[in-house]
């Protein structure tokens, strides 16, 4: 089925979980073929299952039915071949910046000199060199997310999974990190699966934007974003796409709202 260019293959994936004694169909019949090196954004309102799908690819919570394969191999558990960046940074607070970045290599048993070299180059790449001895509590949100990205890059994983990584940042820091991510992606040619609820973010970053529906999560629209990079968020082409996606998203958002009101009425 999947040809050699396919990196991540998601076929017929369902995810059902229980919530308050009720079965919730979080994902239904998701099919997605992601070629190597593609930057894919999963876009949708909260509750559309985009994070559930990401967690299934990460191996944290396996699909109820269907298969997810990476290079043809089925996913059964989390692993360093699919590095994940979380919205809440999740840096180890007891480790310095440098120790956080080195952690993945240390537990792999990489020799010290190689770790030092790798960590130094990653810190330089993400402009963190001056902060290497700091603890996470002494860093801003943007800095913390840089460290989290460096920590994943240290693993040399061909796939990067990102769960609303810039969601908690202010607009300026956010744009800054988006540019940085694009630079890293161009340089290191990773396959990126990026979850966001921001249309603009998806259109600014992705080769391809997958819009998902509110429960059950299905693919509503699979859109190739054929805009030149660096993208101009003020251009007519960008805004046309934004309008189109915004319309799709509003439909799902209103379904989400209705479901919430219904839930509230029952309570």
């Amino acid at each position, binding site marked *: 089925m999947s040809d050699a260019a396919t990196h991540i293959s998601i076929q017929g994936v369902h995810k059902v979980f229980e919530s308050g004694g009720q079965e919730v169909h979080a994902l239904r019949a998701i099919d997605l073929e992601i070629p190597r090196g593609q930057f894919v954004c999963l876009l949708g309102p909260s509750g559309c299952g985009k994070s559930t799908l990401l967690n299934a690819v990460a191996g*944290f919570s396996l699909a109820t039915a269907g298969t997810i394969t990476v290079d043809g191999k089925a996913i059964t558990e*989390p692993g*360093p071949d*699919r590095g994940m960046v979380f919205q809440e940074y*999740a840096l*180890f*607070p*007891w480790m310095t910046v440098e120790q956080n970045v080195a952690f993945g290599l240390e*537990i792999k048993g990489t020799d010290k000199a190689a770790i030092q070299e790798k960590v130094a180059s990653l810190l330089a790449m993400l402009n963190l060199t001056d902060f290497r001895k700091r603890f996470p*509590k002494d860093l801003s949100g943007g800095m913390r997310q840089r460290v989290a990205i460096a920590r994943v890059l240290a693993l040399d994983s061909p796939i990067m999974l990102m769960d609303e990584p810039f969601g908690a940042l202010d607009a300026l820091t956010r744009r800054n990190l988006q540019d940085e991510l694009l630079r890293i992606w161009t340089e290191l040619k990773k396959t990126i699966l990026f979850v966001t609820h921001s249309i603009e973010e998806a259109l600014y970053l992705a080769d391809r934007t997958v819009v998902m529906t509110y429960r059950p999560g299905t693919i509503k629209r699979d859109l190739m974003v054929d805009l030149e990079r660096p993208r101009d968020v003020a251009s007519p082409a960008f805004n046309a796409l934004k309008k189109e996606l915004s319309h799709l998203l509003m439909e799902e958002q209103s379904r989400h709202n209705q479901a919430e009101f219904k839930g509230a009425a029952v309570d």
Partner: protein
Amino acid sequence: MKGYRHAASGVLVPLAALAFWQLLSSMGWVNATILPSPGAVLVKWWAYLRPLEAFDPNQGSYLKWCFTGELIQDTIGSLYRVLVGFVIGGGLALPLGLAMGYSRVAYGLFNPLVQVLRPIPPIAYIPLSILWFGLGNPPAVFLISIGAFFPVLMNTVAGVQNVDSIYLRVGRNLGASRLTQFTRIILPAATPYIFTGARIGMGTSFIVVIVSEMIAVNNGLGYRILEAREYLWSDKIIAGMFTIGLLGLGIDTLMSRLSSHLLKWHRGLEQG
């Protein structure tokens, strides 16, 4: 400037209390046997601290002689018991707490017994401890280790149970084995709780050592103030009490310094 003013306001109330106390004594409002004057306490304190015999070079070095005072010998005795009891109690509580926090099975097995034993104050073990261990250091150390055991245990369990699951997810994502997860993630993440437990346990140990010395041992600060009562030496009782207080403060300050040094990564210990 502000720091000075802060320090000055800090000594204001103690000075006033001292002045009031001195006033009570100098005016003869209270019997000196009931409440001796601050000066008398200070004099007794010094006498209690000083070596009992004159310096004799044949008996050993000058430094050794300096430590022959009754107060110093008592302090050493009390601290020794606290230390041994704390190390035994905390040393047993730590691995058990880690196991109970980490494994549901271990928690299910041990928690009922722990919950039954925990509300028993260490002091309630005094009769048994004397039956089992007789008099001297062993019953005292036993009581102190019970005093240290439960705070360290409960906090260690809570510390391990409260490790944010996101750190474990990151660990798995980065390829950490179960052992690595435990030693490099769960253990450091739980240390703030464990240190809090150790600090509380040390405080309890210090209370218990005084009580146990009043019952089972014939030296130490607790023994000394009880002995002083038999001679109606209230000045010595008060001098002993202040020594106990200052020692407790010193130990607690030391523990808290140590933990803020080791936990300098931790947000909760910094202001702002």
